[in-house]
C-alpha cells in the first residue's frame, strides 16, 4: 500500500508540470495585454480616466519589464528558420504582429529588424522637427505615414506611405532633416524585398532561450538558490513557495489567496458536511423504502430542488428574506462585519446569521445527486445474498442496513468524494458575487478578466494539486471500505 501511495505521489510531479505548462501557454496566448490593462485602470468599467492615458511608451515598457513580460515564454521555441529570435523584445503587440507577418512574407528577420529600427529612427527624427505654421500639416502626414509602416505589412500600403512622405519632404525644405532617415528606411525596406529567404519559412528550427524565460521565472525563479538576495524584483518561483505578485492588487499572490481561502474553505466545509449528513441517510432511507409513496415524494422533491438554479434562489432569498420590502430574517450579505473585540458568541451568532442563506444555496442542489448515488449503491447491495442471509438470521432491520449493507454501498459515494478537495478551494463565482463573499471563486474569475497571470496560475495549480490529492485519497478509501480492493502486489 505504501509503495502504491509513493508511486502515485511521484506521478504527481510530471502531471503537475504538464498542467502548469499547458495553463501557462494557454494563458499567454490569450488575447489581451496585462500591461495595457494596468495602465488603463478600469477593467470592465465604462471607460478610462482621460488623464491616465498620458502614459506613454516609457511607462508601458517599464511596466512590462517589471512584470517580466519582456522575456521569451519558454526555454525553447519551435518555429522555422526565418522566424524572429528577438521578436519578443519588441514591446508593442501590434508592431510585433506586423513584423511577424513581414517575416512570413520575406523570411529574412535580420533585414526586417533593421527596417523596423530605421522606421523608429525616422519617427524620432520627425518628432524632433520644430513645429510651426508651415510644417504642422506636413508633420501630421509624416507621422501618420510612419504609423502605417508600423501597422501594415502590406506592400501597397508601405509604398504609398513612402511616396507620401517623399512628396512632403521634397516639398518643404524645413523637413529636409527627415530626408536621410527616410531614405535609410526606404533602402532598408528595399533590402527586405530584394533579399527574401522565403525558403527559411519551411525549415523547422528550435530557438533556445536559456533560463531567462517567463516559465522558468515563474516555476523555479530567477533569484539565486543558495544565497540570500535582497532584490525584490527577483522571483523565487512557484516551487520555492513564491507565487509572485498580483499585477492588479500589487500584493503577493500568497496573501491574496490566504485572505480569500478562509471564507471559501469555511463555507465549503460546512456545506459539504451538511450535504453528506443529509444526503447519505436520505439515500439509505429511500433505498430501504424503495417504491413507497414517501420514496417517490422525496425523490420528486429533491429533483425539483436540483433543477432550480442556485443564483436565482439566492437572489430570491435576498429579496424576500433579506430585510428589504419583505421579511427581515437574514442579512443580505454572506460575511459579517464583526468587530474583533466582540465576545465570541456574538461573533459566532452574527456569522451564522450571515452564512445561513449562502449555505442553503450551496447545499440544496447536491442533495438530489448525492442521495441518488447513495440510494443506487444501497439498492445494489440490498439485493445481495448475504443481506438475505443476515435477515434470515433474524437480525433487526437497522443492523442489516447499517452494519452489513452500508459500508459496501459506499463505493460510488467515495468516487464523488474525491471532488471535495478541489471544491474546497474552488468557491463559486456566482454565489460569492450574490452574497458578497470575498472568496476564491471571485478571486479566480476577476484575475482571468484582468489577465492577472500570477493569480490565475496559482489558483489553477492549487486546484490541480488538490484534485490529484483527492483522487489519491478516494483510491485509498476504496481499499479501506472494501477489503477486496488491494493495491499491493500479491
Amino acid at each position, binding site marked *: 500500500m505504501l509503495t502504491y501511495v509513493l508511486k502515485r505521489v511521484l506521478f504527481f510531479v510530471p502531471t503537475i508540470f504538464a498542467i502548469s505548462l499547458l495553463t501557462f501557454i494557454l494563458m499567454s496566448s490569450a488575447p489581451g495585454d496585462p500591461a495595457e490593462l494596468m495602465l488603463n485602470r478600469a477593467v470592465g468599467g465604462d*471607460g478610462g480616466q482621460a*488623464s491616465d492615458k498620458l502614459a506613454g511608451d516609457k511607462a508601458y515598457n517599464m511596466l512590462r519589464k517589471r512584470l517580466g513580460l519582456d522575456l521569451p515564454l519558454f526555454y525553447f521555441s519551435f518555429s522555422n528558420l526565418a522566424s524572429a529570435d528577438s521578436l519578443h523584445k519588441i514591446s508593442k503587440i501590434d508592431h510585433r504582429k506586423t513584423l511577424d507577418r513581414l517575416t512570413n512574407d520575406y523570411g529574412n528577420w535580420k533585414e526586417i529588424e533593421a527596417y523596423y529600427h530605421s522606421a523608429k529612427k525616422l519617427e524620432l527624427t520627425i518628432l524632433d522637427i520644430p513645429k510651426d505654421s508651415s510644417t504642422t500639416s506636413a508633420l501630421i502626414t509624416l507621422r501618420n505615414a510612419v504609423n502605417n509602416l508600423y501597422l501594415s505589412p502590406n506592400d501597397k500600403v508601405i509604398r504609398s506611405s513612402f511616396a507620401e512622405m517623399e512628396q512632403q519632404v521634397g516639398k518643404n525644405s524645413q523637413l529636409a532633416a527627415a530626408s536621410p532617415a527616410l531614405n535609410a528606411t526606404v533602402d532598408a525596406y528595399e533590402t527586405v524585398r530584394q533579399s527574401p529567404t522565403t525558403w527559411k519559412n519551411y525549415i523547422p528550427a528550435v530557438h533556445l532561450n536559456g533560463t531567462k524565460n517567463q516559465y522558468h521565472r515563474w516555476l523555479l525563479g530567477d533569484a539565486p538558490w543558495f544565497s540570500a538576495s535582497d532584490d525584490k524584483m527577483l522571483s523565487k518561483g512557484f516551487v520555492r513557495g513564491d507565487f509572485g505578485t498580483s499585477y492588479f492588487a500589487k500584493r503577493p499572490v500568497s496573501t491574496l489567496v490566504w485572505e480569500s481561502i478562509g471564507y471559501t474553505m469555511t463555507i465549503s466545509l460546512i456545506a459539504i458536511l451538511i450535504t453528506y449528513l443529509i444526503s447519505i441517510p436520505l439515500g439509505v432511507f429511500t433505498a430501504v423504502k424503495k417504491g413507497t409513496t414517501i420514496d417517490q415524494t422525496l425523490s420528486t422533491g429533491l429533483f425539483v430542488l436540483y433543477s432550480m438554479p442556485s443564483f436565482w434562489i439566492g437572489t430570491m432569498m435576498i*429579496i424576500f428574506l433579506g430585510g428589504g420590502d419583505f421579511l427581515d430574517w437574514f442579512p443580505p450579505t454572506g460575511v459579517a462585519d464583526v468587530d474583533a473585540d466582540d465576545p465570541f458568541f456574538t461573533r459566532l451568532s452574527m456569522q451564522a446569521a450571515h452564512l445561513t442563506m449562502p449555505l442553503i444555496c450551496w447545499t440544496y442542489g447536491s442533495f438530489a445527486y448525492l442521495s441518488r448515488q447513495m440510494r443506487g449503491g444501497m439498492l445494489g447491495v440490498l439485493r445481495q445474498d448475504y443481506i438475505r442471509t443476515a435477515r434470515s438470521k433474524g437480525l433487526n432491520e437497522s443492523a442489516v442496513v447499517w452494519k452489513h449493507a452500508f459500508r459496501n454501498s459506499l463505493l460510488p459515494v467515495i468516487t464523488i468524494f474525491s471532488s471535495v478537495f478541489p471544491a474546497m478551494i474552488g468557491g463559486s463565482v456566482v454565489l460569492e458575487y450574490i452574497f458578497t463573499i470575498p472568496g476564491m471563486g471571485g478571486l479566480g474569475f476577476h484575475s482571468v478578466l484582468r489577465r492577472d497571470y500570477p493569480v490565475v496560475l496559482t489558483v489553477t495549480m492549487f486546484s490541480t494539486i488538490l484534485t490529484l490529492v483527492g483522487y489519491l485519497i478516494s483510491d485509498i478509501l476504496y481499499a479501506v471500505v472494501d477489503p477486496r480492493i488491494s493495491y499491493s502486489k500479491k
Partner: protein
Amino acid sequence: MKNLSAFQLMVATCAILVIFNGCTGGSKKERKNEVVVHELSDTDMLNPVNYQSADAGYYAQKLFSTLMIYDPKTLELIPYLAAALPTVEADTVTKITKYTYEIREGAKWDNGTDITAKDAEFSLKVYKCPIVNNEQNKPYFESIYEVITYPENPRKFSVVCNKIYHINYEISGDFFFLPAYIYDSKGLLEEFPLKDFSDKYDQLAENPKVKEFANEFNSDKFQREKGFVIGSGAYEFDSWQPGVKLVLKRKKDWWGEKYKGENKAFDINVDELIYQTINDQTAALVALKGLKIDAMYGIKAKDWVTDVTQSEKIKEHYQLSTPPSMAYTYMGLNMRNPKFSDKNVRKAMAHLVDVDKIIKVVGYGLGQRTVGFVHPSKKIFYNDTIKFYAFDVAKAKQLLADAGWKDSNGNGTIDKMIDGQLTEFNITFTYNSGNDARRDAALIFKESAREAGINVDVVPQEWSIYIQNQKNHNFEMYYGAWISSVGESDPKQIFHTESINGGSNYCYFGNAESDAVIEALRTELDKDKRAAHYKKLQAIIHEEVPYIHLSAPQERIAISKRFQPYETSPLRPGFFEETFKLAE
C-alpha cells in the same frame, strides 16, 4: 437507531442557526454619528500614490491632504493645505512656470510636527520615484521639475514646471502630502534633489537607496496596515476587513478644526465613515430598503427608474438625487476606414443616430445630450452655439447619395466603387460585452441605419480585447465613454494627431488646424482666452465627426434622511459623506 442520530444532528444544526438568528434579528444597534456608504467592490489599497481603483482615490482624500481641492458646488479650486491659491509666474521665453504656495499655519502631522515645504518636496519625489508602482500617474507629474524653498519661511515654496501647460496649475496642487517620518523613516530619499528624478531617472533606478525605498513603499505595509497609512487629512484609517468593510475614524485633534467654516475642505461633521461592500446590486438595494446603508451611488438606471423611485420605503427614508456626472458617451468612427473617410458620410452617420431616443430608452432619461467633450455644466468652456445633428434619415440618405453611395446592384444595401472594388456599406459596431445599455443603443442605431441601406453588425468584445482593438485602430465603429476630470481637461490625449500612435486618438482625428488649437489651448494661461480655444475645438470636432457625441449621464444617488438635506455635486462620486450633518 444510527440513522436517527444523524437526523438529530441535522435538526440540532438547524436549531442552532435559527437561535443565532433570533439573537441578531432583535438587537438593533443605536446608530452613532456615522455614515455607511455602499461600495460595489472592495478598493485595492490605501496607498495614496499607487492606488488604481477610483474609490481608493476618494478614501485618500479623507486620509491625506492636497494643497487645493475642488469645491463641490462651484467646481472651482479652493485652498486646503495651502493658505491661498497659488501665485503664478510664467516666463514665456524660458517656458518656466512657477506656482508659489504657502502652507496653512498650524497644519501638522499626527506626531505634532509642522507640515513644511520639505514635505511637499518629499511627496513629489515619491510620485516621481523609479520602481514605485505608480506607472499610471507618473506621466501626470512629468512636467514638475523642482521645488524651491525659502529659508525665511519654511511653509512657503514654489513648484517649478519646465514648460507652460494649462493643467500645471491644477497638477502643482494635486498631490497628496506624505509624512516622511512614516513613509521614509530611514531618510533614503533625502540626499537626492527633486530635479534628479527628472534628469537622472535611469541612474536613480539603479541606486540601492532608491531601490530600497521604492520596494518598501510598494509593500503591503503601506497599502493597508494601521500605523503605516497616515496622512494629514481629517480621518485616520481604523480597520479594513477586505471585501467586507473599511472604517475611517475622525481624528481627535485635527489641525483643520480651527479653519472650520472657511471653506468646504474643512466642513467635517461625521465621526465614523464606514464603507460596506455589497457586490450585487439587487442585494445592495435590499440592504438600502432595510436601512442598513446611509448613502449609495451608481445605482443602475433601470433599478433607479423601476424600483428606487417607486418604493415608498425608500422615498420615506432617503433623499434621492441625480446630479450630472463628469463623463460623456459617444460613438467613435474610424476616419481612416474607406467608408468613413468622407466627412459627409460621417455626418450622415450622425444624422442616423437617434440620440434622444437612446437617452430616453436606454438611459431611462437620466442623461443630458452633449455637443462635445466638454461637460455642459462647465459653462464657460462649453460651446452652446453648436447645433445637434438632428435625427433625420432623409438627410442622411441625401448626404450618402452625394458622397456616391447608391444601391447600384439592387440588393437593398448601398454600395460604392472604392479602389476599383464594389464595396457594400456593411459596418461592424463593437461594444464591451456585458454592457447591455451599449448593445441596446447600438441596436437603435442599427435599425435607423437599415432604413438608409446600411447593414450594421453589432459585436460584443471582451473588455481587454475591446480596448486593445481601439488602441490599434482596429474597428469601424464603437461605443465608447470618457470620464473627464472636474478641472479642465487636456484634449491632447484624445484629439491631437500626436496621440494617434500611442495616445487615445483612436479615430485618427485631426489636422493642422485642430492641432494648432489644442497647442494654443495648452499654453494659454488666461482662462477666458482658453475658453475660446475650447469652444473652437468643439466646433471643429463637431464638423469633422470623429465622435458622434451622445450624452453626459446623470449619477443616481440615495442619501439617508437621518442627515440634513444634502446638495449632491457633479464631483465624483456625487457626495462627500464626511460633511453630512445629522438631522435634528
